[in-house]
């Protein structure tokens, strides 16, 4: 709010203080963010929110013992005692021989500009946001007389600056901006209500889809749920619509990250080099996609980010590792460390993509005599250590290669390895608007529980 010094300078000073307080090594991350959001419901402004925030995370080592702390108090005296107490905490902890900063020779020395910032700069446009949200909701509400209520439309914008410095000589910082627009209409027919939503997100406001287009898609997604029935329990082919397929890919992403692996919590433990999916499946993690929603020029330990082939023709080619998990597993880091401000670095995916196929998504139902197109999933029935999968679902029932009627209050169940191995078709509809993204995909058979 008041004029502040560049975040990288603060990071540098904190490192010096940590060293003076007795830390043998340390790293610091500083994130500052400015954000605005406006919501419109039934045509009226419902809420406007504005925020400014700055937080600092410090990790201190005393030999192989470490402690982590975060604060929002940037006063000189506040930071001084914060650093001292973090070092004191590290003194008390046992030694972990695998802990520590990465090898300095591996650090990124020339971080690229990944175009993560709106080239036009960041300006909060309160009236523009309200207009976009209003247009978006109006298009959804106007799409059909059965849409008479709404959870509203929200237009958000944020700008962040991320700085990272470590005592082995790394200093880097970058800025990102993000704009998003979403709407959640509600339709009613025969006294039964159904809601759904649609959204878009981009680095710059200009790249967002037309608000009316977002509204129309949300309306169509909501209307197609009206009149949903329950199914009788059965086994059948299941198509995951693209936004839902991304959640499946997310379970796989979690299972190949270092933290799950060295803790023995992954259903893909010891499967490196093995066929874990259908030969159709190609998965990459693209850390440096220009303007990508999850791109980063360096990772949370200062290592270069990269493109990593995860699955090639169904074979598991690589895990995603940070330095610590890499040491535990006897492998090098893949530059995949990320870090929430008050926690230790851990590997996580960036732009994690299942490559699209050639089949137009709408043709995936062709030839299915009876099957399920899943459009929404709920609940937490995924056991990531065994891969056992059972989640609540709703969607569209398919008969004779065509959409027959909407269904709800059912579950779909299987095992993630079996599910990935029995993918028999991929759609062409990858929508690269979120970090983890997948096209529509078809699984040969799953158990569907209903009445």
């Amino acid at each position, binding site marked *: 709010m008041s004029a502040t010094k560049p975040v990288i300078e603060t990071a540098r000073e904190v490192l010096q203080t940590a060293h003076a307080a007795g830390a043998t090594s340390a790293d610091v991350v500083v994130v500052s963010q400015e954000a605005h959001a406006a919501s419109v419901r039934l045509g009226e402004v419902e809420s406007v929110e*504005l925020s400014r925030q700055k937080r600092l995370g410090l990790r201190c080592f005393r030999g192989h013992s470490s402690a982590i702390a975060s*604060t929002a108090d940037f006063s000189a005296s506040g930071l001084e005692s914060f650093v001292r107490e973090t070092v004191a905490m590290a003194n008390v902890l046992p030694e972990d021989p695998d802990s520590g900063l990465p090898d300095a020779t591996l650090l990124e020395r020339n971080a690229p500009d990944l175009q993560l910032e709106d080239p036009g700069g960041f300006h909060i446009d309160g009236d523009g946001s309200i207009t976009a949200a209003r247009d978006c909701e109006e298009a959804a509400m106007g799409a059909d007389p059965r849409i008479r*209520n709404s959870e509203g439309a929200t237009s958000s914008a944020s700008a962040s600056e991320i700085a990272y410095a470590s005592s082995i000589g790394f200093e880097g910082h970058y800025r990102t901006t993000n704009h998003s627009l979403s709407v959640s209409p509600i339709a009613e027919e025969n006294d039964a209500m*159904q809601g759904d939503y649609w959204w878009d997100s981009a680095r710059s406001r200009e790249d967002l889809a037309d608000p009316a287009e977002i509204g129309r898609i949300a309306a169509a997604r909501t209307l197609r749920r009206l009149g949903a029935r329950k199914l009788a329990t059965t*086994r059948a082919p299941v198509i995951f619509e693209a936004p839902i397929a991304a959640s499946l890919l997310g379970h796989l992403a979690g299972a190949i990250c270092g933290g799950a692996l060295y803790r023995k*919590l992954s259903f893909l433990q010891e499967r490196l080099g093995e066929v874990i999916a259908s030969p159709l499946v190609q998965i990459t993690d693209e850390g440096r996609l220009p303007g990508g929603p999850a791109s980063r020029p360096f990772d949370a330990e200062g290592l270069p980010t990269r493109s990593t082939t995860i699955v090639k023709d169904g074979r598991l080619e690589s895990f995603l590792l940070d330095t610590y998990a890499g040491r535990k597993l006897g492998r090098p880091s893949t530059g995949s460390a990320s870090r929430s401000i008050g926690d230790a670095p851990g590997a996580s995916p960036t732009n994690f993509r299942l490559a699209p196929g050639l089949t137009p998504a709408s043709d995936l139902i062709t030839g299915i005599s009876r099957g399920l197109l899943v459009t929404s999933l709920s609940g937490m029935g995924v056991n990531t250590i065994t891969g056992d999968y*059972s989640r609540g679902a709703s969607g569209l029932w398919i008969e004779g290669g065509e959409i027959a009627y909407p269904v709800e209050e059912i579950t779909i169940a299987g095992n993630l390895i079996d599910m990935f191995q029995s993918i028999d078709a991929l759609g062409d509809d990858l929508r690269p608007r979120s970090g983890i993204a997948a096209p529509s995909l078809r699984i040969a058979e799953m*158990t569907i*529980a209903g009445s």
Partner: protein
Amino acid sequence: MSTDDSKDSITAIDTRFGLDARQLEQTLGTALARKSDFADLYFELRESTHVGLEEGLVKRANVSISQGVGVRVLAEEKTGYAYSDEITPEALELAAASARTIAHGSSAERRIAVRTGIASPSHNLYPIDAKGVSRPLPDRIDLLQKIDKEARKFDSRICNVMANLAIEEKQILVTNSEGTHIADSQPLVRVNVSCVAESGGKRETGNAGAGGRFSIGFYLDEPEQAFRLARDAARQAIVNLDAEEAPAGEMKVVLGPGWPGVLLHEAVGHGLEGDFNRKKTSAFADRIGDRVASELCTVVDDGAMERRRGSLNMDDEGTPTGRTVLIEKGRLRGYLQDRLNARLMGVSPTGNGRRESFMHAPLPRMTNTFMLSGEDDPGDILRSVDNGIYAVSFGGGQVDITNGKFVFSAREAYRIEGGKVGAPLKGVTLIGNGPDALTRISRVGNDLALDEGIGVCGKDGQSVPVGVGLPTIRLDGMTVGGTRT
């Protein structure tokens, strides 16, 4: 940080931020554009500490200190909200000016009077003795190492133990344009143990946790309370090693006491929150007085229970907490309200206006939600089922407020055959319809238990601690989402 001693909360928060009544009056005056509007300031100071063990080693300790203020203006149905982690007169003025942009009205300054002394809530559900909420780090490290030993001792197939001690000390101050000027100091601790069992190439996990609004000293003084969790997590992991595939389809389901109360949280609790009912986006809208459960069911939300994780002396708008009857003998009686929705619906707030932090505006939220005991013997309830499922522990759930469909997933469940508990089952997900599910309850046990104190509820991106509770119940005809047809 952990060595901090004096915790006289009521003076601490305003002293720390250098706040005086004059400054608060000025900020509220800036926030308010019109006479009919309402404004509040929510100051928060929070320190959270986690110490974690895995692979037999306490590897890290994390401390997070956060502070900030949220300024809110309510004008009819509109909310203006601004927050900042900088608490200076300039930052407060800027936040207040931003929040008021919601109200289009005259720009006349309005005089607000803030009393000089800060009030305290009328009850104290979580008194803390002079030793404070925390304990020295070496003592906490020692307890974690003993938890690890206790879990591994349970069975040689336990190959990893993850244990965590979490302590949160939060101080809040709520000042509003209607004269409320009140502070609370809210402790929250939690112990979590997770075990991995490995045998013959199969691996499984087991989890147990407990906590509430008291000092972590409770577990250091009575380590058996923590060891019990260690053994339970290990036992669950071992049980799950032998779990069979669950059946798919509709069947009778018996839920054990305590944590399976997450059923109520998902099936009815969220659907009875005031905002969804004011906006008529809930499947329960306009249904007060209707039959929504079997007449064996009385469900309440009670934020005023001593030491409970979901309890609060006052909610995050300064309203005292209390008990709200949601369903009485099967009939829908009430909704959970915050100020905004209570005012717009013409009812009183129920002390359920909660927020994750100063970064969020309050929403109507649950506290401790549970069903009162019935009359049946729990053993009789199990014996009454010829073929069904007995679920005793759950991972989590989700609900679609609008169509009422909810789902929740068991972490420990068994087959019931001929009235007897049989083989453990994996992948038991239950799905149902909120306004219908509780009408299927045919037996209610006399063994109400609340969960151990580990619940987290998410809504609109905000997480808050909650409690649930349930006696043993029998539901006739729930869809079980297994794999076996």
